[in-house]
C-alpha cells in the first residue's frame, strides 16, 4: 500500500491520511494508491498537513507495517521510550 504521512503544522504530531482527514494513529491510514501524490499536494496546499510524503507499507495481522524501519519507529515511538508511544501494546521487536 501507499500511505501518505506528514506532521501537523502547529503541534508537530505525526499524522496519517485516513481517506477523509488526518489521524495520529497509523491504524487509521488508508492505501492512497495512485492518488497519493495528488492528495499530498492538495492537503499541503490547504495547510492541513506539513512536510508530507508517501511511504510503502503492508497490512499485516498486527496492523499496518511500514516497509522501512525508520517509518516503523516513526509510527511506534522511540523504541527506548515506548511508555511515550501512542500504542499501549508497543514493543521494540515490532520495528524489526
Amino acid at each position, binding site marked *: 500500500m501507499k500511505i501518505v504521512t506528514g*506532521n501537523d503544522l502547529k503541534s*508537530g504530531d505525526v499524522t496519517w491520511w485516513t481517506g477523509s482527514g488526518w489521524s495520529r494513529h497509523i491504524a487509521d491510514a488508508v492505501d492512497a494508491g495512485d492518488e497519493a501524490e495528488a492528495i499530498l499536494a492538495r492537503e499541503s496546499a490547504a495547510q492541513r498537513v506539513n512536510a508530507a510524503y508517501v511511504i510503502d507499507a503492508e497490512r499485516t495481522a498486527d496492523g499496518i507495517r511500514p516497509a522501512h*524501519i*525508520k517509518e516503523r519507529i*516513526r509510527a511506534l515511538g*522511540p523504541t*527506548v521510550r515506548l511508555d511515550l508511544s501512542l500504542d499501549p501494546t508497543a514493543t521494540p521487536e515490532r520495528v524489526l
Partner: protein
Amino acid sequence: MYKYDQYDQAMVDTRVAEFRDQTARRIAGKMTEDQFKPLRLQNGLYLQLHAYMLRVAVPYGTLNSAQMRVLGDIADKYDRGYGHFTTRQNIQYNWIKLEDAPDILADLAKVEMHAIQTSGNCIRNISSDQFAGAAADELVDPRPYAELLRQWSSFHPEFLALPRKFKIAVIASDTDRAAMRLHDIGIQIVKNASGEIGAAFYVGGGMGRTPMIAPLIKDFVPLDQLITYSEACLRVYNRYGRRDNKYKARIKILVHELGKEEYTRQVEEEFAHLLTQGIEPPLAELERIIPYFADPAYEAGASDELDRSDPDFALWVDHNCHAHKQPGYMVATISLKPVGGIPGDASADQIRLMADLAKQYSFDELRVTHAQNIVLPHVKKSDLYTLWQSLDAAGLSTPNLDSIGDIIACPGLDYCSLANARSIPVAQKISERFAAQDKLDTIGELKLKISGCINACGHHHAGHIGILGVDRKGTENYQLSLGGCEGADTSLGTITGPGFSEDGVVDAVEKVTDLYLSERKDGERFLDTYRRIGMAPFKEALYG
C-alpha cells in the same frame, strides 16, 4: 559567569518577538515551509522523527542554577518530563509544539537563555572546556573569548546563509578537553614569546562523512584582532565554500581543496582589508567581560582532607572528581550514563535537583560536557560526601567517567530522521555488558562513542572505540572503528572490517576489550595498546 546587560536582554527579547511574528505568519499561511524552515532552525526548532525538537543553547556549556531549573520546568510544562544533553553542550527537547515555541523562548529569555542559531547554516553554539575556570592547566579562562565570539556571531547579517553549519570551539590549555581540532574553527588562547596573550586558529576540522583534523592556519592572532580575523575566515568560507553538494559544503572541504596555504593566503588578504574597516570591538569590551568569569569566593584554607571510609563514595571520587586549581576544592562530574540508561537524558526532577545542588555546593554554576555529562565545577572537598549522597539517591552517582560505561551516543534512529540505525539500544546493551564495576575499572579509560549515521553527531570518529550505525538493505548494521582520539593528539578511528548486527557489535566490543586486557603492558590505556600493536591483532580477534 556572564550576565546580560540591558542590550543583551533586549536582543533576546527582540528575538522572541521576531520568532513569535514569524511563527504566526507561518501558521496563517503567509510563508511556505521552505521559507520558514531556516527561520525556525535558527531558533533551534527541528522537525524531527516524532515531533518538533527544540535545541536550547548553553553558551560554552555554562549555566547557573536558575537557568538549569527553567530547563527542568520546560521539560515538564511543554515536553514529556525529560531533556537530552548533547555532544555540543546544549540541551534538546523532543516533543515540542510549534505553537508553544515562542512561549518557550520567552521563558528562556527571562533567565538569559535562548535557542539562537543552534541549528541552520550559520555559526552555532560556541563550545569550550567543561573545566574552564577550575582547571590548573589553563592559561586563562577561555570563556570570555567564547562570549565575545558569541555576541559577534549572533545575528551576524553576512553569515546567516552560509553553505552549511559552522562550529567553533575555544580552549586555553594544551590539554584539549573540547575536541577543538574537530571543529570548523578551533581556537586555543596562547601566550607568545613576548608573553602576550593571543589566539591560535585551527580551521577546517570536523567529523561527519569526511572527518578531518583542523590544520593550524595562524599561530598567533593578537586579542585586539580576534573578531577581525574570525570575520575574514568566515567571509572566505561564505564566498567560496561549496554550495553545489550538501556533503561537501563544510569549510573543511574548502580548506582541503584549496590547500592550507591558499586558504590562509585568502584569509590574510581579507584580514588585511577588514583591519581597515574598524569592525573590532575595543579591548575594553573584552576587559568588561573577563571579570564575569573571575574566581568565585573560594573559602581560604578549606580543608584538603577527604574522608574516604565509604567505599562507594571513594569509588565515585576516584572516577568522577578531578583536582581543582584551588586547594580544598574538586571538580565533580555527574554521570548521565546510568547502567542501561539513555546517555545524556535527564528527567525534569533530576535537572532541578542538579540545579539545587549547584546552588548549594558549586557557587551556583554547572557545565554541560560534550560527553553528555554535567559538571559542578567548584565543590569544596568537605561538601563532596553530602553532594554524593544526594546524587546517589537520585540515580546520578554512577562512577564511570571516561570509562567504557561513559558512552557517548547520539539520539539515533529512535529520535532522529537523519539516522540509519538506532544508537541508544546499542549503548544500553554495551553498558549492561560492562556493568560490573571491577570490569569497568580493570579496563580503565576507554571512550566509546556511537553515531546512528554518517553525520557523526555521536563523534564516533573520535572514539577510542567508535560505532557507526548504517542501513544495510533495510536492516540496522554497525561498523566498528578503533583508535580515534580527541585530545591534543587528535586522531581519527580506523574501521575494523565488515559490520555487525546489534548484538554482534556488543560481542565485538567485548572481544576488543578482552584482547586489550591480554596484550596491554603496564599502565597502558586501551588507546595506548592499540597504538602500539595496531589493528591487525584486533582484526584477527574479531573476524578470525
